[in-house]
């Protein structure tokens, strides 16, 4: 039987326009997760255990 494993957890934090935070959690190989187009997000791969502050453009 293949044993399951706890994979690495990666956090990316952004700020919404009303000031609330939102944290995206992804797991496993960071290189498999494509970046999104948040204006302040840095180049791939995704930041690991580093909080990226970004302003999300919303239309509300």
């Amino acid at each position: 039987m293949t044993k399951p494993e706890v994979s690495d957890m990666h956090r990316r934090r952004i700020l919404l326009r009303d000031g609330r935070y939102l944290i995206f959690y992804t797991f496993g190989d960071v290189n498999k997760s494509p970046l999104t187009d948040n204006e302040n997000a840095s180049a791939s791969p995704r930041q690991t255990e580093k909080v990226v502050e970004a302003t999300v453009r919303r239309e509300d």
Partner: protein
Amino acid sequence: MSELRWNPLLGEWLVTATHRQDRTFLPPDDFCPLCPTKDGGFPTEVPESDYDIAVFENRFPSLKSNPEAPMVSASELYPVRPAQGVCEVILYSPNHNSSLAQEPVEQILKLVQVWTDRFRELGALPFVKYVFIFENKGEAIGVTLHHPHGQIYAYPFIPPRIARELEQSASHQKTTGRCLVCDVVAAEVSDARRTVAENDSFVAVIPFFARWPYETHIYARRHLQAIDELTAAEQIQLAAMLKTLLVAFDKLFNTSFPYMMVIHQRPVDGERYDYYHFHIEFYPPLRTANKLKYLAGSETGAGMFINDSLPEIKAAELRAHVEPVVWRAETASGND
């Protein structure tokens, strides 16, 4: 507008949160505010879909990190405090039509890791004394959004139910020298009639003292106080136990089973709680496939629960639906 008001009759705080009257109520699936925003669609709470689990501050919080001043003045009889704290929403998946029971056990393991991260981060805030992780599932519970999600309330005090468990645990420790929950686990495993499922690290039971017909507790076999003490192996075992129980719930009446799920662990106020024991409690409101257990006069007015069923019988019903957990890796490799 939120504030904490003291109830002198019960000696406990309550929260007023008038703005929550305006929160979104059972929107059509196409207008779910918890789904990722679609190209050209209306802006939801979540601007992206590329995530495993997402956490954000509740748009309609009962508690805020920077709360407004109370609307009313405090008095000696009626103390009032700003409603300081944090309210978070945890999205279990970008998929609107899922549920925790339907998610693969690998995804539940990720949730356990996120719970641990939120416990640590929120527990480090100076104004937070207790991190309460929970899920309300199903319209029977009063859920207003169907997208699979849970919540976290970071309280500026130890909530009354937890305080009472702490008192009972401390008293038992002082009297016997033993952990109360460790004794409960030993009694339930020895008796076995109320056991629903077991693995190396956890045991799920409808306890001797269950207040709801299908009230089920998941106890850690090892004596530990909080989720951040789980080893990697125990995190895996907890995910497997949650999957086992949730699938059994759904199979019981062949429905998406409603429940309240709450995690009970030590406070984060800097004190030691070595006598306390981490566990998870489920309170399903169904007493049959189509009948609800209501909190009526006795339960609400006297705090006296009447359980019109026997835990020994209900545990046997649930146990009949327990199945082995299948990991994706096993499926992919042919169970090698």
